[in-house]
């Protein structure tokens, strides 16, 4: 048996053990749903509420993907601008690092007061979280370029933009993509947290409402769907990455 398929088998086994332990704990100790609902109840709850949950997941994913796209564009754009205009670096880099070291959730009250509780505030929050990660990782990638390669291209008469397009961006791509990948899970979580503080819809809103309506099966159902949405988003970006980086895959 190959090590890879053994790893998959063990991974599945681990998940099965967890599910059984959860089910056994909840059923065996007859835990009430407000402490821990049984796994089977949660799965049944997801199936029963599939229309509502799919709708909420759609809202959350739309916020996360839109914010992700905007944030990625802003972050990468800013990094490229700083790479093109080195004079701007001294001002932009410290500001970005300072803003980034403040926990993103601390901004959410302010953004909610500014942008209201519609989808706008979630998109802004996600964009905020994603843009700094991408700004810093893209900049680090752009800086990784070999000095001698730059000099070589220059000696052939290449301008600053040509060096950026032909050399620096391709070099930065792996780090940029790593930043894009890690931001997927983060963008869903940020959208969800912001929804819980105030929203018209989405998985975070469903969780918030379910807590108030004392429906803990629904709380857990929404959490599971959110986790699934994160993994899906992550998987899609990973797939896109493998397509883009095909020349690197051995």
């Amino acid at each position: 048996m190959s090590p890879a398929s053994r790893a998959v088998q063990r991974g599945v086994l681990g998940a099965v053990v967890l599910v059984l332990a959860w089910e056994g704990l909840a059923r065996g100790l007859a835990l009430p749903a407000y402490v821990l609902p049984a796994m089977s109840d949660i799965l049944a709850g997801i199936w029963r509420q599939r229309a509502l949950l799919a709708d909420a997941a759609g809202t959350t994913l739309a916020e996360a993907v839109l914010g992700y796209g905007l944030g990625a564009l802003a972050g990468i754009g800013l990094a490229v601008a700083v790479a093109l205009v080195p004079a701007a670096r001294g001002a932009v880099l410290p500001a970005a690092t300072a803003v980034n070291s403040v926990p993103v959730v601390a901004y959410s009250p302010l953004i909610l007061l500014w942008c209201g509780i519609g989808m706008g505030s979630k998109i802004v929050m996600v964009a905020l979280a994603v843009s700094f990660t991408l700004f810093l990782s893209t900049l680090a990638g752009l800086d990784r370029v070999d000095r001698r390669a730059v000099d070589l291209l220059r000696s052939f008469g290449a301008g600053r933009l040509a060096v950026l397009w032909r050399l620096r961006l391709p070099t930065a791509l792996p780090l940029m993509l790593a930043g894009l990948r890690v931001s997927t899970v983060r963008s869903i979580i940020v959208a969800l947290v912001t929804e819980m503080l105030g929203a018209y819809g989405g998985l975070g809103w469903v969780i918030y409402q379910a807590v108030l309506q004392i429906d803990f099966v629904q709380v857990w159902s929404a959490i599971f769907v959110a986790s699934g949405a994160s993994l899906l988003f992550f998987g899609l970006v990973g797939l896109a990455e493998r397509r883009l980086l095909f020349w690197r895959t051995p």
Partner: protein
Amino acid sequence: MTAASLARALPGATAARGGAAGRLVRAALRPGGVLRLVLGVCAVALAWEAAVPLLGIRPHILPRLSAVASAVLATPAAYRDGFLRTLAETLIGFSAGAAFGVLIAVAFFRLRALRELVFPIFVVSQTIPVIAFGALVVLWFGNTLLAKATIAFYLTFFPVAVNALLGFEAVDPRQVALLRSFGASPRQILLRLHLPAALPQIFVALRLAASLSLVGAIVGEWFGDTTGLGVLLLQAMYNENVVGLWAALLACALLGTGFYAAVAALERRLVFWRAEQ
């Protein structure tokens, strides 16, 4: 597969993040750097103060910095106590998360079967939003400082474990064989070879964990508490007290940057051989 690649995604991004910021910390610690940092902060403060009246910004969008400062000075104890309480939660969660992360990485490194069984579950657990999980923590751990530290811990341990594991695996097997031929015990090999070799990677994760543990502490305080920066944020938000909101936000910023800089400075001392590269 997804699990493994999700895990691998973390260090790449964190390395990048740490790279730029690490350089910044180093720059700030140079003699002229401190002066430049102070000047920069003063410039931003002046620009903020001047922009509000000049651009006619309504105070409930952005208050003047002087208004924020006087709000802090009116009740300094609230901000000091909140700062210390959140700092304590952050530090406890961070330390526990870092220690557990390294320990679990050692266990995963030694016991491949355990790793293959548990690791995917850890990965999936990281996609669960803390805030949804927080009410349960209160239920299980009560309304204590420890409940908040637990959330900080939950956010912290995973990146540390992933990076430590990657660091351990990058060790050259020939070096292990060499040490073993000199009669070194597995324990000695771990302490003398693997841990130092993984330290740069671990610190990359610790810098990320510094911000994450603060997020955990703040979100934890949203589940019913009296003191803490998270409480101040929440109270200001629901009372539409924008001045108080900015004051709490600035306190969070101070704590976040301070803790991050402290971890980066510690890294510079402990991983000196890497920092010179």
